């Protein structure tokens, strides 16, 4: 299908827009224009015409509205008329929406948009048939399910596979394969079978009629089980897919999990050691305090005690170091302290006697001082013991502290690795928990599937048994024989068609995959291959099967190829209409994309595609034009005229563009 002409009236900048294409140059059509010259208005006009996209009163051309306001009455209409050509037959599509001006000068719609489709054979100027259901015709020929693949804003094309197009692709493939239609037809065939079966029962008598009803019931039961089985299979497929995705995601976080686990271990060890360290420090503090107190007491008590002892000593009130009993014994036995010299040294005896006298005189004060002195010695011992304990604990504490430092160093080393993944800890937890739940769901589904298979087997046997009884009970009249023959045929058709839709879907999916893969590979010198998964995810892989990283230009190219593939593969040939097709990609990629697209739409390659590009001055350049010139194309541009900035269409390249350096160089012949 190709567009032969477009007329737009009163829509935004397009008050009087007319494009008429020669059949010779309508494969590649450019409607170029600088920003603000009406390209997006034209895209909006197509969307209004094809998909009844809502328009607002403000979408009416300013100049037309001004005229309406000046006259104060009447109505104006936005109209978009297209003439389409499909292999020699023509369709004239016309959608319009009128607006009136109210009493308070506000604009109001006059009714709903109106769509007309007139068919013409061989000559578009002589319409021959007004289609009775124009919306149906449009839905059949330009299904809205394909919207994402033939009418869009190229600015978004590089994100084509990033945003969720899986649903759109699945819908498109289903549309192409016409699964819904096929299922509807099969339902009609089943109803027909049931009708014939019922008729056979009726003509064969009451018993047969009853058996036929039983057969219908058991068939329904079987059919419900098949439907349940499909549902379970779909759920199972979904759950398995989710299981794969989750496993893959968790796999990507495998190292993160390892690092997080080690970090946890380290933290636990650190906590344990820290608690040990605190216990040691606490014990040491106690010892230090004890030693300190003892030392303090010793230091505070030592001086006064010595003083008291000295005074007591001077007054003979401090006990000698010898107990009186021991001294008396020495004196009695004439022995010296050393046990030998006393008898030989009389002064020693008198000395001993003095000591004895002194000991006796010391009295209670000396004894008390002696007790205090002894206690002081004990305190000194305690302080010393505590000090020794502190020294010993200091060694242990040092070891614990060294261990802590070691673990902290390992933890610090781990820190940069944890930096990026710490935020993922919750995610990993969530993924693991979801995976567990999906695993359980799958177990449940598998169990249900097994039970269902058993039920199906029983129900199938029941149908066979009922069928056998019914066949036996039916009459042998010629009508009954004829009906049995028909039923047997239909039964065969129904059984054979079971699961055929899935096969069709698979066939379309694999052909689109093959097309995209071979074209993308051709353009990219075999660097990549494309895979369309069973759930319609479009993957790009390197030759070794690993996922490929694509540049924005490559992504756009793949999206265009995919879009064209959907048409090529299934022989649907509605045009590809894109506003700013090269979006934001750089000059070098634009050139490569232009070259690649021209290869795809080259009519000499057997393509029957029509492509309509609306490009701005950054996209349509001498560098891209040199590729476009390889294909027959129609060059047009939008120019603003008049005080109301109406956009009008002219042939060729906008003369204003020749003031741009590249075009000036091209005109001089500097760019070939």
């Amino acid at each position, binding site marked *: *299908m190709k567009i032969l002409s477009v007329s737009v009236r009163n829509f935004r900048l397009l008050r009087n827009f007319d494009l008429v294409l020669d059949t010779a140059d309508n494969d590649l059509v450019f409607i170029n224009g600088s920003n603000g010259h009406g390209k997006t208005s034209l895209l909006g006009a197509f969307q209004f015409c094809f998909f009844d996209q809502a328009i607002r009163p403000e979408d009416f051309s300013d100049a037309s509205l001004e005229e309406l306001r000046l006259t104060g009455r009447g109505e104006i209409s936005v109209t978009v008329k297209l003439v389409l050509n*499909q292999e020699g*037959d023509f*369709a004239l599509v016309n959608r319009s929406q009128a607006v009136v001006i109210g009493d308070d000068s506000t604009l109001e719609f006059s009714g709903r948009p109106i769509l007309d489709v007139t068919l013409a054979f061989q000559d578009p100027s002589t319409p021959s048939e007004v289609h009775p259901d124009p919306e149906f015709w449009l839905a*059949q*020929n330009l299904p809205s399910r394909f919207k994402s693949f033939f009418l869009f804003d190229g600015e978004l094309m590089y994100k084509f596979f990033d945003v969720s197009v899986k649903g759109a692709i699945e819908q498109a493939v289903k549309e*192409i*394969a*016409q699964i819904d*239609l*096929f299922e*509807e*037809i099969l339902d*009609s*065939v089943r*109803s*027909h079978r049931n*009708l014939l079966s019922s008729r056979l029962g009726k003509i064969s008598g009451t018993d047969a009629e009853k058996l036929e009803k039983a057969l219908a019931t058991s068939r329904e039961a079987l059919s419900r089980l098949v439907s349940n089985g499909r549902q379970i299979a779909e759920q199972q497929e979904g759950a398995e897919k989710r299981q794969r995705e989750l496993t893959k995601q968790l796999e990507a976080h495998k190292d993160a999990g390892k690092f997080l686990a080690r970090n946890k271990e380290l933290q636990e060890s650190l906590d344990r050691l820290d608690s040990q360290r605190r216990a040691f420090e606490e014990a040491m503090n106690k010892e230090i305090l004890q030693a300190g107190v003892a030392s303090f007491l010793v230091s505070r008590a030592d001086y006064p005690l010595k003083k008291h002892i000295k005074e007591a000593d001077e007054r003979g009130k401090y006990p000698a170091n010898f107990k009186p009993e021991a001294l008396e014994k020495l004196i009695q036995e004439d022995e010296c302290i050393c046990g030998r010299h006393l008898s030989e040294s009389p002064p020693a005896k008198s000395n001993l006697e003095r000591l004895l006298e002194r000991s006796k005189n010391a009295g209670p004060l000396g004894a008390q001082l002696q007790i205090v002195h002894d206690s002081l010695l004990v305190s000194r011992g305690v302080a010393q013991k505590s000090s020794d304990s502190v020294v010993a604990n200091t060694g242990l504490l040092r070891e614990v502290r060294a261990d802590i430092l070691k673990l902290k160093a390992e933890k610090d080393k781990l820190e940069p690795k944890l930096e990026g993944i710490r935020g993922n800890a919750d995610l990993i937890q969530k993924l693991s928990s979801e995976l567990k739940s999906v695993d359980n769901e799958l177990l449940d589904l598998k169990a249900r599937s097994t039970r269902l298979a058993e039920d199906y087997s029983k129900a199938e046997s029941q149908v066979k048994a009922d069928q056998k009884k019914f066949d036996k009970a039916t009459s042998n009249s010629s009508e009954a024989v004829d009906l049995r*023959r*028909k039923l047997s*045929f*239909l039964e*065969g*058709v129904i059984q*054979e*068609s079971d699961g*055929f839709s899935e*096969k*069709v879907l698979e*066939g*379309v999916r694999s052909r689109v995959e093959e097309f995209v893969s071979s074209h993308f590979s051709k353009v990219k010198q075999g660097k990549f291959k494309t895979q369309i998964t069973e759930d319609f995810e479009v993957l790009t892989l390197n030759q070794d099967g690993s996922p490929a990283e694509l540049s924005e230009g490559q992504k756009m190219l793949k999206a265009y190829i995919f879009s064209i593939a959907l048409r090529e593969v*299934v*022989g*649907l040939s509605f045009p590809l209409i894109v506003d700013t097709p090269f979006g934001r990609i750089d000059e070098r990629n634009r050139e490569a994309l232009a070259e690649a697209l021209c290869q795809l739409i080259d009519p000499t390659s057997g393509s029957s595609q029509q492509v309509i590009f609306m490009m701005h001055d950054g996209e349509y350049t001498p560098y891209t034009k040199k590729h476009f010139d390889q294909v027959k194309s129609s060059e047009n541009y939008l120019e603003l005229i008049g005080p109301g900035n109406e956009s009008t269409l002219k042939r060729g390249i906008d003369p204003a563009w020749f003031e741009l350096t590249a075009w000036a160089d091209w005109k001089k012949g500097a760019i070939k």
Partner: protein
Amino acid sequence: MDNEIELLRVLRASDLSEDTKKYLIKAVEANLSGLTQSKLDAILESSLEQNENS
């Protein structure tokens, strides 16, 4: 402007038995203008007739 091509093409290329294939193709073609039980009856009759003749 025929939009049934793909399903018909797939049906023709399928590994369904010839009888089933022919019957379903006729049903898909008949579906273009609405599939009624009487149309299905006619398709069935002609399919069986074709079988007998072949």
